């Protein structure tokens, strides 16, 4: 398994669009899309939890090359809070209920489009990391908060 590549992000964007899936890049992968210079290992997607979206998600993941058993597909369709996929062309975390964000619709209203990639607003990315409160998040937060200030100063949109 190599590192997540831009080409694979494009495949997510295009395939998810074809399947009509509502999702947002979140976490450090989302921040990187906004311009945050840092490193991470995989992509985190905040997916809207509703039956239609979750069914479409299974089809999209299979199109992308994820090998899902029927049981695994059923778990995704049920919209479990957190699904970790390492059975495809790249690692992917599906998050249906991220810490620090109450509703998908709230995040969607604030989201940023970066070259067609739907990305959580920097405030939601920071709120989620603050609420998660892991050691690795604590270590990255000061720099992420500085990036937020920079991003607002520049009025950037990715």
């Amino acid at each position, binding site marked *: 398994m190599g590192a997540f590549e831009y080409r694979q992000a494009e495949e997510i964007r295009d395939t998810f669009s074809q399947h009509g899936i509502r999702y947002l890049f979140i976490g450090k992968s989302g921040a990187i899309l906004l311009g945050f210079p840092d490193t991470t290992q995989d992509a985190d997607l905040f997916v809207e939890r509703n039956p239609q979206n979750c069914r479409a998600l299974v089809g999209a993941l299979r199109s992308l090359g994820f090998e899902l058993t029927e049981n695994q597909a059923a778990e995704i369709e049920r919209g479990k*809070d957190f699904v970790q996929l390492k059975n495809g062309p790249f*690692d992917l975390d599906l998050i249906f*209920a991220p810490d*620090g964000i109450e509703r998908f619709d709230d995040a969607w209203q604030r989201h940023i489009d970066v070259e067609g990639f739907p990305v959580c607003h920097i405030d939601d990315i920071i709120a989620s990391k*603050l609420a998660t409160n892991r050691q690795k998040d604590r270590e990255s937060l000061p720099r992420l908060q500085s990036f937020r200030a920079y991003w607002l100063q520049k009025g950037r949109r990715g």
Partner: protein
Amino acid sequence: MGTASKLASNEVVSDAPSAAIPPDWREEFDAAARRPLRTRFRYSFIHTYKPVLDDAPFRAFDTTAEYRRWCEENLPDWLGYGRV
């Protein structure tokens, strides 16, 4: 924006974009802003083996809290997935 109120009260990020940015970080942010997204991706995504975490092809958790607990109970501390 109004979203700062969602953050923990002792850690609210100022809505004012004038917060101090360390000069070396600002230089890095400026440099990143000059790079196309495709290049930023190449510099940002890495892959190293994470023990335990990378050893199963699929995991699903009913709740995010359950996932956090699993991380704390099963992953090496040095990976940084434990809550503070």
